[in-house]
């Protein structure tokens, strides 16, 4: 799920960035530092949308660096247990399949794929129903339900399932 929230961060700025472009330098450094990172609490920071305010800078003793407390608005993405997501399949193997939504890696084990879908090996491994009408392979898009999440410093891992009503393939790359 996406959220638009305000976060705060203490930015250290080198004295060479001081001058009339100070604010711009501060913002571009903030973007570089924050966008694309994860925190367990907020999830993945997708983009900074605005600066709320920049507090008073504090000169650090001995270094000349200045610390600014910056409040910024940003869009974050965080998966939740029970959430329904749409994801693109990246890899299919006999254990199940891996899918991605943005930075989030989701694994759906073959225990959590409907029993009527069977694994087919070959150069394009896939899970197919016995009548061949539904096929999950690389680049398929699936709708799945998250049953477990874990966030570390740079990555978000999820366990998903498609063994439930209204879950499964939502497009077929072979016919698209």
């Amino acid at each position, binding site marked *: 799920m996406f959220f638009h*929230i305000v976060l705060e961060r203490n930015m250290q700025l080198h004295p060479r960035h001081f001058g009339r472009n100070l604010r711009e330098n501060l913002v571009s450094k903030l973007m570089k530092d924050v966008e694309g990172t994860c925190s367990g609490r907020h999830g993945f920071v997708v983009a900074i949308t605005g600066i709320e305010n920049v507090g008073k800078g504090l000169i650090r003793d001995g270094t000349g660096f200045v610390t600014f407390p910056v409040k910024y608005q940003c869009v974050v993405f965080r998966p939740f247990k*029970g959430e329904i997501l749409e994801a693109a399949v990246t890899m299919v193997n006999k254990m199940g399949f891996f899918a991605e939504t943005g930075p989030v890696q989701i694994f759906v084990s073959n225990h959590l794929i409907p029993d009527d879908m069977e*694994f087919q090996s070959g150069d394009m491994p896939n899970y197919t129903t016995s009548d061949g009408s539904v096929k999950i392979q690389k680049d398929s898009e699936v709708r799945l339900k998250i049953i477990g999440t874990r966030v570390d410093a740079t990555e978000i891992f999820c366990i998903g399932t498609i063994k439930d009503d209204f879950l499964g393939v939502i497009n077929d790359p072979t016919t698209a």
Partner: protein
Amino acid sequence: MSFATDSPVHSSSSDDFAALIDAELEVGSSGSSPDEQDNEEEEVDADSDDDDSDDEEDDSNDDLNDHRNKRCKTEKLDDLEGPQGSTSQGLIEEKLEVSLNKDTCTHPGSFGQMCILCGQRVDDESGVTFGYIHKGLRLGNDEIVRLRSTDMKNLLRHKKLYLVLDLDHTLLNSTQLNHLTAEEEYLKGQSDSMQDVSKGSLFMLEFMHMMTKLRPFVRTFLKEASEMFEMYIYTMGDRPYALEMAKLLDPKKEYFNGRVISRDDGTQKHQKGLDVVLGQDSAVVILDDTENAWTKHKDNLILMERYHFFASSCRQFGFDCRSLSQLKSDESEPDGALASILKILRQIHHIFFDELDSDLASRDVRQVLKTVRKEVLKDCKIVFSRVFPTKFQPENHLLWKMAEQLGATCSTETDSSVTHVVSMDAGTEKSRWAVKENKFLVHPRWIEAANFFWLKQPEEKFPVSQTKNQ
């Protein structure tokens, strides 16, 4: 949901935010480790979050405080979160029951330390990691057994077996650029373009400071073997190297498809093992040039003659001869090691699927390998002369065992039934007897060559020379 608006200076704390989300969603997502929260955000801790005296929120704040104070307790609380994970305390007893039911999950494996079946956190370090398939994937032993047996059925239906291939000296030969000798500098001008990898056989990988020569016939070999086998690469090289080589061998990703195992993925140091291969041992054939790497799976192994193209590779193995690159030659394409092994693989495949009459699932490719190997020197009776040191039990010698595995009968005494005398020296009594009796007199390398090519070699190619002091 308007978090941005209701977080002015005094209540923009991170705890507040998470509490709000949890309450708002009524979803038990605190399982996703609030204990990993960002340090910087923790500085801005909450003290003024009680404006909203909604029950649910209070409780979830309690939760969060617990998380911070006692880690051991957090785990319990996480377990308590049912799938709906409503945070009101009245439901806790019910949830206990739910969690009891959930605990019956056998946790067949984990991905990013979460059970692949129920999504719970598992910190169990048992089982085998499958880092080569995906980062963070680990499977328990029971699950591996289950996957192997279902996969086996699938594979046998397609009339395929597993083939595990080594890279260096088996399918190709690589050298560091700075190890090239002056004589080999010409190769730099001859290397093939990296644009269309599928045609060339000599590649300069400048970003890895390496030069790689594919063994002649390897493209045909992979193409034909892929019809009979599901193939794995298993190398003692590191992961980036293994993937790079896989790209050269299989530019279209039709043969290996993520089944590339490097030394970083193995479970034991300096050893290769079939435990990370998702195939039953009874259906795996291994091609490798190093017997010692496979101590536990010698019966699955077809030993390859080493391919030394570069001088540095010859030196590494202590050969003092000129390398193929220095001689500006190469292994023969139609009669090289890979071509002859492909014939053997075809034969093994044929016997396994078409000649055995036992139940398909009970067949064992290791038995087939043994039988095929026994055909190589069938009807040969071998006597050794000046091959083993005196006082050495001949039955224990490597060559003796090798000859027996190849189906030959070994003997210590000459008699009329003997067909071959294997000798290092043409001057010994037995050698002279062989010449007189018109028996084959061959060098020990004749047996080694038969062992590599799985084919009886022409005897006249392995003459025995007279030693000088005789």
